[in-house]
């Protein structure tokens, strides 16, 4: 069951990141430059959104398979931070540059702010994928049971450390 949810999560990432990627590339003025930006956004965004919903559902299921493990996982925590940053990036884009899209819709290369939004978005997808891939490696490198660890690692992972060697 877990394997199926994990497979769905990884496969849906092709839909989610794949369409978001093509959208960001258009914002960077690198691909599909003859298509109006608003058209690319309007046509691809539904797929990105659908992908996101499946990602979040499967992600939540994966989390609940072993909540404490995830919660105390440095990579998982950073991944959640990255997700929030990605959402923030979209929100900023929507409320600023996107408002004036009529001005730069037909431009081959959109204005700087749009390009920044696209670039930040791309970087965040790469970071998200990386962190997601690293989640299992927590067990080898930073796990709470591997005491003594440096204080920073313990603080970041939320490990509860005292003289007892029992994992909490």
């Amino acid at each position, binding site marked *: 069951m877990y394997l199926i949810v994990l497979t769905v999560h990884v496969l849906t*990432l092709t839909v989610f*990141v*794949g369409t978001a990627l*093509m959208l960001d590339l258009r914002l960077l003025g690198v691909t599909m430059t003859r298509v109006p930006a608003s058209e690319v956004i309007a*046509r691809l965004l539904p797929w990105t959104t659908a992908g996101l919903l499946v990602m979040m559902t499967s992600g939540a299921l994966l989390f609940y398979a072993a909540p404490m493990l995830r919660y105390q996982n440095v990579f998982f925590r950073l991944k959640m931070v990255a997700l929030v940053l990605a959402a923030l990036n979209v929100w900023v884009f929507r409320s600023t540059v996107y408002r004036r899209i009529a001005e730069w819709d037909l431009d081959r290369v959109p204005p700087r702010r749009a390009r920044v939004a696209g670039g930040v978005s791309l970087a965040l997808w790469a970071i998200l*994928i990386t962190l997601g*891939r690293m989640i299992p490696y927590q067990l080898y490198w930073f796990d709470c049971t591997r005491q003594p660890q440096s204080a920073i690692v313990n603080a970041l992972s939320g490990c509860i450390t005292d003289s007892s060697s029992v994992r909490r």
Partner: protein
Amino acid sequence: MRSSPWLFPIVATIHLFGLAIIGGSVLVVDLRLLGLGLRRQPVSQLARDAEPWLLRGLLVSLPTGVLLFMCFATKYYYLTFFWVKMASLAVVLLFTFSIRREVTMSDEQRIGRVRSTAVALVSLSLWTTVAIGGRWIGFP
């Protein structure tokens, strides 16, 4: 690569980047063939724009895939899903650069809805098989 604990996950992550790039470039065109997504654009235009990205995605995925394989070659040899993935990968690459390419690059009127839909579905199923096979390699 086996001696360093960091290298395998990093290579695997880059392999995943390639997956995302391939996914995006394949989806844009296949969705269009199905009459979804960027409907108002000519297929050939989208295909021409997407093709460099498909090639870049492959340029990332294929070498990293080889590197990953080299870590566990003798192990992979005995795993069914590895062969499932390799077989479907070979078929989808052949298919993409022959039939699919011809269909996407030619005039829409000539191709017709049935053939476009068929090509898109074959392409999507084959890539999905590659992806699932890849994810299930570790599991007998």
